[in-house]
């Protein structure tokens, strides 16, 4: 009995701390729909590229690496996912952007939001605005991206974050 209880506690602890990874997997499955295989790697961004993208987007990267998911059906590469963080007012916002194999955004999702204000940024409706955008898009709040009253900082921050990843993905594809 004791073992059973211990085991349950242990599993629920593990399940809880894995929520980001689980949510990422679920989002990738939902976005690409079919039976996909996912290749994961931590991508180190070279300094020169990092600086140039940061300048274009007007925002620093959270760290020197982002998480890259390559999506395959069989042996065919059909798309990508990039997981990164930006700062809201004071806490990191973890978000995932999913692309087709030409660098066009298919889906975007906030994986974890930690701030007490501005949680509406997680809505499907807000994130759906990024569908179809690519590196040529403006990514300007109030212009091609709608704001959220009460979530100004988070909206600006995530929009720049998605622009950064989109520019980065273009470099990954053109390699």
């Amino acid at each position, binding site marked *: 009995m004791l*073992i059973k209880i*211990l*085991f349950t506690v*242990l599993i629920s*602890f*593990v399940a809880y*701390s*894995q929520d*980001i*990874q689980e949510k990422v997997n679920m989002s990738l499955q939902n976005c690409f729909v079919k039976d996909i295989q996912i290749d994961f790697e931590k991508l180190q961004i070279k300094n020169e590229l990092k600086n140039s993208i940061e300048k274009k987007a007007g925002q620093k990267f*959270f760290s020197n690496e982002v998480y890259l998911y390559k999506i395959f059906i069989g042996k065919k590469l059909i798309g990508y996912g990039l997981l990164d*963080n930006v700062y809201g*007012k*004071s*806490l*990191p916002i*973890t978000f995932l952007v999913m692309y087709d194999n030409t660098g066009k955004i298919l889906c975007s999702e906030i994986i*974890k*939001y*930690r*701030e*007490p*204000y501005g*949680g*509406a940024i*997680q*809505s499907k*409706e*807000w994130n*759906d*605005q990024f569908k179809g955008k690519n590196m040529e898009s403006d990514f*300007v*709040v*109030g*212009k091609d991206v*709608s*704001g*959220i*009253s*009460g979530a*100004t900082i988070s909206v*600006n921050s995530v929009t720049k974050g998605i622009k950064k990843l989109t520019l980065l993905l273009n470099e990954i594809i053109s390699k």
Partner: protein
Amino acid sequence: MKHFILFSILLILTQSIYSQDYNFFEPKATIAGYGELHYNNEKIGDAPSKAIWDFHRFVLFFGYSWSEKWSFKSEVELEHNFVKNGQGELELEQAYINYHHSDLFGFNVGIILPSIGLINEYHEPPLFFGTERPVYHNLIIPTTWFGSGASVYGNINGFDYRLMLFETLNSDKFTFSQGIRGGRMKGYKTDASRFLYSARLDYLNIPGLKIGASFSFNNAKGDTTNVDVTITEFHAKYEANNLTAIFEFGNISYNSGELRASRGYYIDLGYNIASFFELNTKIIPFVRYSDINTAAETFSGGDNEKRYHFNEWMIGLNVKPIDNIVFKVDYSEQVRKLDDRKSKFINFGVGYMF
């Protein structure tokens, strides 16, 4: 049992290595702030005009996050740049502990801001039109309204809620000319025998739109008066495709005393014309209409219900070279209902947030 322990150790070890991969949080202090310098020129009726410079607000935000769930947030404000003998104010506008359990539920406790109207909680200068905050947010909803309290909040399917227990108002300080404004206790040794109860609900799942309402009740008390106050307020803001449109309406009812109701509304319409020229700077001309009556209903009736009733037209321009900096200019005319007395205001200013 032995196997179980081994398995557990293995699982915890791999887990801790693994979970670090996805643990992006680290304890961190945050500094932020905002401020605004104003030029105010007013001409009330036939009186000569008067112009002043006023560094209206200088605010520093300081916060610390111990964990993803527990954090501290604070805002200290210096108003009018200089404090002496009743001039200027130094205020602790926010200082609270926040527990963010999940999107569905969190709470905070300390010096907090009532969630009433669009501006009280989100009052940084780049976020509203006009050099000064809308007159509605001075006379009907008295911003910045802060004090001791606690609230629970969360978001369910696009509905954002907040329920609040907040310090009482002082009913001795209610006036015809400013409604409940003078009754705010600002967290200073407030009577703890009663509360203001407040509930707010917003819907946010239409991109660019925030629409909601709040309802608050307080059995307010002073040394000589005791008044039931009910604040009902509706707000909507649409901001997308270069367009900004805002509507707010508020009604305050008082169950005893001379003053029986304060009421007002305003409408804002603005458009970012820089979008025609593909500029990154936002250039937003706007127009505002306000109708305010802080003594909309009185016990005795008569002229008092017209003396504090005015409407106001404002035209202005907000220019934002970047989203965190705004230059503002506006012109407005107020007409008092009682005698058609006209007042004119020219304001300009600069504001920032970071």
